[in-house]
């Protein structure tokens, strides 16, 4: 956002806010460590950032609930993360910026023109394409048009949240607005997906920081998520994992197993198939995460998680019903229907066999009589 700080480097900006060079290096080292980067990356990151002009960021919000932005702003204040984010040039965010209406749109247009090819486009929310894009429009322009225009001059696109990354709840069946993830609309720009509903604040800030400090796209998995944060399943790092290995499972949310902190697998925990840093970075400054609070992981950082069946069915259970969950009655109906077909086939085949047996015996009898 435009202010008196425009034109300062990140180093100058931090100095102005009373952050020493030593403190900044310590912070960068801690961030590099959290991201499992090599030890030399901390000071290198600090030097790169200190001498860089504040990178321009355009943050577009489309079909979303603002939960991702709420998460992003829930960094514990005052922290150095806040300063980092005061230190980027957040040129457009329709929720956080003071300007509104034409002034805001004008600021965005100006920032995109001045930083063409260099700014980072952060997208929050899915992009509806139904009804000519009329389901989501701002300033008289549809989300899909705004995205295409903003993507042209972006150095990279960072999709925050599962909606921008994979379509999210709007994309879920029956997808009434014909919503799509950003990657389905833009295919000629580097895209980093920071999925989650919402993503962990430190994962969002860490991804942006790594990109700004190294100038390159981090290593990504097959869903374009930074491997450093999405490289392991929650199950792999879960503190309840020993109970899984011991076969101790909570059966209900208030039984003895649940009170003793046993594994929530049978209550539908999707930790084994969900890649995220919840079990290590946790939330609210490392206080807790859903599994620690007694609820199984719902797999919110995975593509299409809304359509993957009941949140409360174990991963190993059958899932072919409309809601994904197979009730015993449905299984019984399947068995009964298939069983009836099997019985009919058995009767027919036995009848054919008997007929042939009868013919063989008859011909044998005839043969004996003839001889």
């Amino acid at each position, binding site marked *: 956002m435009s202010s008196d700080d425009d034109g300062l480097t990140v180093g100058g900006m931090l100095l102005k806010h009373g952050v020493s060079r030593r403190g900044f290096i310590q912070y960068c080292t801690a961030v590099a460590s959290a991201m499992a980067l090599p030890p030399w990356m901390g000071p290198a990151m600090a030097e790169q950032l200190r001498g860089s002009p504040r990178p321009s960021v355009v943050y577009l919000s489309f079909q979303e609930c603002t939960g991702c932005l709420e998460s992003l702003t829930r960094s514990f204040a005052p922290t150095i993360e806040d300063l980092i984010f005061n230190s980027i040039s957040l040129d457009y965010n329709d929720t956080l910026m003071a300007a509104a209406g034409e002034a805001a749109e004008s600021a965005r247009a100006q920032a995109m023109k001045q930083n063409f090819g260099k700014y980072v486009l952060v997208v929050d929310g899915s992009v509806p394409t139904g009804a000519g894009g009329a389901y989501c429009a701002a300033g008289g322009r549809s989300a899909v048009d705004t995205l295409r225009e903003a993507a042209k001059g972006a150095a990279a696109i960072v999709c925050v949240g599962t909606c921008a990354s994979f379509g999210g709840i709007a994309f879920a069946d029956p997808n009434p607005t014909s919503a799509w993830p950003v990657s389905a609309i833009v295919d000629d720009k580097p895209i980093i997906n920071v999925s989650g509903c919402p993503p962990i604040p430190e994962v969002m800030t860490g991804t942006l920081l790594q990109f700004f400090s190294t100038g390159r796209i981090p290593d990504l998995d097959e869903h374009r998520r930074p491997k450093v944060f999405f490289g392991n399943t929650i199950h792999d790092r879960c503190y309840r994992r020993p109970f899984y290995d*011991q*076969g101790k499972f909570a059966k209900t949310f208030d039984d003895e197993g649940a009170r003793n902190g046993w594994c929530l697998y049978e209550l539908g925990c999707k930790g084994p198939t969900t890649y995220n840093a919840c079990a290590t970075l946790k939330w609210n400054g490392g206080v807790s995460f859903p599994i620690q609070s007694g609820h199984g992981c719902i797999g919110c950082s995975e593509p299409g998680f809304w359509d993957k069946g009941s949140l409360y069915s*174990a991963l190993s259970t*059958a899932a072919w019903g409309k809601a994904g969950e197979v009730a015993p009655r449905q299984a019984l109906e399947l068995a009964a229907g298939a*069983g009836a077909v099997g019985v009919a086939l058995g009767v027919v085949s036995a009848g054919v066999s008997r007929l042939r047996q009868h013919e063989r015996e008859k011909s044998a009898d005839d043969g004996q009589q003839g001889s």
Partner: protein
Amino acid sequence: MDLLGFARGPALRVALAVFCIGVLWRIVGFGLLRLRRDLNKPRASIARFLTRGLITVGSRSWPHPEFIPRTGAGEALGYSYHIGLFIVVLLFAPHVAFIGSLVGFTWPALPSSLITVISVLTLTLFLAVLFRRVTHPVLRMLSNFDDYFSWFVTALVLVTGLANTAHIGARYETLLALHILSVDLLLVWFPFGKLMHAFYLVPSRAINGALLGRKGAVS
């Protein structure tokens, strides 16, 4: 739809349907067959030869003392891996959850680490019976595609299950999908191969015993 969704959704549904159709087709078809006419005079009362049938189910479960030195080890091997399979299939918590989701009730499970140990032992026994089959001249001569493929689909379930538990070779969801797909394959093959012995074992022994009992023989 991802691979895991396909494996536990449409593929499992089709596999269960084929399993139910095939098993009942073969059981009913087998059960309604007419026995060959036996023109001999019965050597025992109906009650006695039916009793002999039931006794045979148990008496043929272990070799006659005379044959134990020759076949006892093979029988023990067979029993061991069957017991291992039953434990792994019925007492592993995710399996209990799976079966429970279909039948509507569950039962206590064993610790996962114990199940892993039993699975490794069972797989080792599986390899041992395969080794025995291919090295034993008579067994090798008696074996056909059905024997080897039935062994393969059952061992595949064990291998993919172990890989899934140990997270070896691929991501968890891929391994879980492959494991469930291997179960789907087993369900489809089950009624049409020698795996049907699970259903035929008791009635075929009983019928043999009853027929022999009718002739006055002790089996």
